């Protein structure tokens, strides 16, 4: 026991003596939290739009006014012809070209139908689809207004029923994107930092040669592994505390659920990640190898964590791949507990899976650490 305590103490001395460590644990995560929470936004704004208005009728003008009034769009130009509009789309000056053909108004009133063309630059898929959807909503509501003005009467002599769908956004009523991103990003940051630090640790001892000296001592495997695990777990928890405080002070993120559940899950999740980091470290001969292997996992973990793209919209096989992804569970727990106020029993699934991950990763770590070649 005394031996283990001394190993932990030694590890802490080394960590705090490393000049890069303290800023890495405090400043870097907060900067990342701020930058990412502001920048990594799914909201589509500033969609650049060109309108080819070949009709110039009052109805067409009204539609243009309605679109101009929407704050999502930047009206770049009114090209004189469809060909010009196509050019603008091709050169990338605009994201969407809306064409109102000549005689639009006439068609609308006489034939009870008017055609409008939307050309969308789908290179940036999200911008395109979300932009087109916004535009469609505007056009549809415009359409409804027109019909209402016309007082079109159906056969029964009643005005046609309009379906009006009011929407309420639960758990994040103002759709504040930072509320949504900050908890997830925090989970991701803590996990990555801890995983990287651990992965680099044992291999560093191997590279410098200290492990050879350690190996001829009576230190037991579990003492060595625990001696590494506990300090990094501590660092992860401190990081989470710093991050949560920053997120609360800076963004005022809601904290609906119990912080105890958050910290408990963080400890469990970090135990799993630490096991994986140690496993990578044990298998690597150099810090470089460890770094590249960790990057491989980290990139997959982040992109498939549901942080930026919803897991539900991934193909089925990819959804299965998110099960052994600790970041996916962490992001999910952070969001549901903080925003929705989920209790331990609501997120028990994530606890169960992470316990399994922790056992598997740590078993691998203990097995792969060899004192004898």
């Amino acid at each position: 026991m005394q031996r283990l305590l001394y190993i932990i103490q030694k590890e802490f001395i080394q960590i705090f003596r490393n000049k890069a460590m303290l800023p890495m644990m405090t400043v870097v995560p907060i900067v990342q939290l701020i930058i990412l929470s502001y920048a990594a936004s799914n909201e589509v704004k500033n969609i650049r739009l060109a309108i080819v208005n070949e009709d110039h009728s009052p109805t067409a003008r009204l539609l243009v006014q309605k679109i101009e009034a929407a704050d999502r769009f930047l009206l770049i130009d009114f090209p004189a012809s469809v060909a010009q509009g196509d050019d603008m789309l091709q050169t990338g000056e605009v994201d969407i070209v809306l064409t109102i053909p000549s005689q639009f108004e006439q068609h609308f009133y006489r034939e009870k139908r008017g055609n409008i063309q939307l050309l969308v630059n789908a290179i940036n898929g999200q911008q395109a689809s979300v932009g087109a959807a916004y535009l469609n909503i505007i056009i549809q509501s415009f359409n409804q207004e027109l019909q209402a003005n016309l007082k079109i009467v159906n056969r029964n002599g009643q005005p046609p029923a309009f379906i009006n769908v009011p929407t309420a956004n639960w758990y994040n009523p103002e759709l504040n994107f930072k509320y949504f991103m900050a908890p997830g990003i925090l989970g991701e940051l803590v996990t990555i930092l801890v995983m990287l630090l651990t992965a680099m640790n044992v291999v560093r001892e191997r590279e410098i040669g200290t492990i050879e000296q350690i190996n001829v001592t009576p230190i037991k495997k579990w003492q060595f592994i625990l001696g590494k695990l506990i300090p990094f777990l501590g660092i992860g928890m401190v990081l989470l505390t710093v991050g949560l405080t920053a997120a609360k002070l800076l963004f005022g993120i809601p904290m609906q659920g119990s912080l105890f559940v958050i910290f408990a899950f963080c400890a469990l999740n970090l135990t799993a990640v630490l096991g994986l980091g140690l496993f990578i470290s044990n298998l690597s001969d150099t810090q470089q190898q460890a770094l590249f292997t960790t990057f491989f996992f980290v990139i997959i973990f982040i992109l498939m964590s549901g942080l930026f793209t919803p897991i539900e919209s991934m193909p089925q096989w990819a959804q299965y791949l998110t099960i052994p992804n600790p970041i996916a569970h962490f992001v999910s727990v952070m969001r549901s507990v903080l925003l929705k106020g989920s209790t331990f029993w609501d997120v028990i699934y994530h606890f169960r899976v992470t316990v399994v991950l922790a056992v598997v990763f740590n078993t691998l770590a203990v097995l792969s650490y060899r004192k004898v070649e």
Partner: protein
Amino acid sequence: MGAVKIEHISKSFGDQSALKDINLDIAAGTLFGLIGPDGAGKSTLFKILTSLLIPDDGKATVAGLDTVADYKQIRRIIGYMPGKFSLYQDLTVEENLNFFATIFGTTIEENYHLIKDIYVQIEPFRKRRAGKLSGGMKQKLALCCALIHEPEVLFLDEPTTGVDAVSRAEFWDMLQRLKEHGITIIVSTPYMDEASRCEEIALIQNGQILQVDTPDNIRESYEQPLYAVKATSFYQLIKDLRAAPFTKRVEPFGEYLHLTTSGYFPEEAIYNLLKEKHHEQIEVKRIDATIEDVFLELAG
């Protein structure tokens, strides 16, 4: 009882055979030298004896404990100083020593008598980080850390490599004094001149033991006559001596050439031959063999 007993140890790394059928018997309390060039297999043998490496074949015991089966006990009773400095560079001198003492379940105070002589030399720097020490200081610290748990057998893998001549001499003096505490010390070194500081040595080359004996016996085992020869034109001298009818071998040794002849020749005969070849400032003298002469003879 032998402190270290090695029986038919072999080890290969892939196709590369590192040790071939090694047999050694080292008595307790000996200062034993394992002498051989780089790549001879010294470190591999040390790793097997310190239980860091499992041999392909054969069996070794340290203080009666099997290096494979009893590795846990072995690790309590040996001190090992790897060839590469392997203490924590970011811990101070004192912290390193404390760390290793604690790991072995002891304290600095308990075994201070063992390391006192060495530690007093680095004590002024005890608050300095190990990475910032000079080469000789690092060596002393590493030795202290390997000694702090009062090992029965001390393995020092090339402790003097890369250390200046004065520090090397000091280091060997320290080992002599340690021997008085009854510790068996096994040292490997590529420097043949250090062999004479050991009580017993084994010459090792290409994974094979060439000879095991006391340094004196090994030197005396060189039976052919040996001469040290010197002249102004060193290169021409080698060429002429190699062509001479009596020559068995010529090896450069610093400013002299060591000439081995088949059968005894008076110094004058060699002198006259070189005179005929127009050499100047010729010097020829009969000498006793050094360990290196024996090694080259055996290895050649």
